[in-house]
């Protein structure tokens, strides 16, 4: 059965309680799903975001790249409302995440799928129950329907046969696909992928890559990826943001950005060890640290 068939069938069973997943009810008519304006966050005295602006287009695959420690995962947490910035605002589907009540925030989160770097499957439950978890928590569907839905989502990620396995019995790639099935079980409007390719062998990587693309193309789910794998991003992303020092330093579609000659993109896409991203962690003068006095350089 082709993916398209399954998802076509699935769409008749859409049962999201909140209106947000329903494209008809989308409040903003513009093409931006997530709008970040002037986001400033200071964590432990370190400025993570410095008046960050970003527009994530609806229905596209957007990749966020940047050196380690620039707060890409932190940005995802801002979008889901787990963290709040010190200034600025984030609008998801027209709603300001930071000011939402807990109930409204939870309602919003039902429309967001999140794929954790380490999958975060519930170790108590088998694969089936993991995927069924959001359904059981938020709906009172009959068991038969839950079963059908879960098996179809598992089929979509190619793991229907693994329904009875426990998370500890899964390989990293399989666990990530199960987590993906769980993330899409409610047919969200937005999926956030946190490092979806890390630690995967080329086969598993391509499987995940294919899933991201398929989910985006067939269901029109807006996807946001935080990743480093340039080749993979070139294949899948429609739009790339390059973040460094708390600001967007470059953006555009992958090919233009790669061709752009700025020092940031040169270093990042060219893989140079030194450049705008310093090789040295900020430190005092080496000579002084080693005990030489004066002008040793």
């Amino acid at each position, binding site marked *: 059965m082709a993916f398209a068939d399954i998802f076509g069938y699935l769409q008749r069973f859409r049962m999201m309680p909140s209106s947000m997943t329903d494209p008809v009810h989308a409040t903003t008519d513009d093409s931006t799903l997530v709008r970040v304006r002037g986001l400033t966050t200071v964590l432990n005295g370190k400025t993570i975001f410095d008046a960050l602006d970003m527009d994530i287009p609806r229905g596209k695959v957007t990749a966020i790249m940047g050196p380690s420690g620039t707060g890409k995962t932190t940005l995802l947490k801002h979008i889901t409302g787990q963290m709040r910035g010190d200034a600025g605002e984030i609008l998801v589907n027209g709603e300001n995440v930071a000011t939402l009540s807990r109930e409204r925030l939870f309602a919003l989160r039902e429309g967001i799928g999140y794929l954790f770097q380490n999958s975060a499957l519930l170790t108590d439950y088998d694969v*089936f*129950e993991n995927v069924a978890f959001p359904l059981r928590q938020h709906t009172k569907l009959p068991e038969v329907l839950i079963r059908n839905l879960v098996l179809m989502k598992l089929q979509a990620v190619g793991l229907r046969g693994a329904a009875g396995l426990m998370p500890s019995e899964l390989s990293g790639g399989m666990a990530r696909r199960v987590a993906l099935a769980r993330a899409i079980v409610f047919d969200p409007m937005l999926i956030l992928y946190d490092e979806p390719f890390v630690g995967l062998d080329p086969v598993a990587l391509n499987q995940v890559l294919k899933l991201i693309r398929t989910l985006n193309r067939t269901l029109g789910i807006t996807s946001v990826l935080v990743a480093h794998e340039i080749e993979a991003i070139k294949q899948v992303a429609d739009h790339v943001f390059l973040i460094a020092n708390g600001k967007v330093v470059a953006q555009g579609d992958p090919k233009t950005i790669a061709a752009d000659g700025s020092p940031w993109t040169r270093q990042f896409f060219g893989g140079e060890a030194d450049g705008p991203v310093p090789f040295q962690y900020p430190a005092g003068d080496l000579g002084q640290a080693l005990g030489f006095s004066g002008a040793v350089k």
Partner: protein
Amino acid sequence: MSQPRSSYAVGTGLFIVLGFAALAYLATQTTSIANVHQGASYTVEAHFANIGQLKDRAPVKIAGVRVGQVESIGLASGQDAADVKLSIDKRYDKIPLDSVASIYTSGLLGDQYIGIEYGHSKKVVADGGTLALTKPAQQLEAMLGKFFGAGGVADNLGGTYTVSARFSNVGTLSVGAPVKMAGVPIGSVQAVQVDPVKLDAKVTMAIDKRYNQIPDDSAAAVFTSGLIGTQYVAIQPGGSPDVLKNGSQLILTQSAMQLEDLIGKFLVNGSSSGSSKSSNTPSGKH
């Protein structure tokens, strides 16, 4: 899938049931609730001269079998006696009218209960009836005396003869305490009195007639069985050819040791002679 969920529920249910069963067991089988009488019963009265430590809800037993409990304890109107109402199970309604109700103690330190020994009457005691024959609670001292055999020997076996001895201090020696020779009970203490003139204690002992060859220069001493046991009179035979007769007095005595004296003796050398002198010489010290 939904299988493990229901098995958890069943297992958890079993656990909860087990927990409550344990609680019910503790509450009903091991507490005083177990003594609360249930079911039909009838009430019988009994008057006792002394009820000792008898308490409400104390068991009533026949031949060691629990048949009921004490319902209430009061003073009988106009009498120097306790009026005890017994609530007895309807199943045991054939108790003869001339049965004897006694107050016993379960074990040495246990609580007291009422034991009923059947009489021979054809009439049975009815609801609201009275058991006329009763035995009051025994004082521990008297019981102990009996327990060590002296009383039994003296009472039951063909007569005793009486001798007396004077002690400067009898400690906690009480009536009924055994009199022993070579550790064997041969009699019991009958009376402990203070001599108003000499200001010492005169102990009268009843000794079994079988033991009539005790030399008259034997010594009597008040000893304690073990560290915290009861006290008794020990007789150490002398060498005289004459023997004790009814009414004789033992001249050589050793008084009860006070713990303080004992420790003093232990610590200070040579004080033993002084203390024995003081015990042999009745003085007004005490």
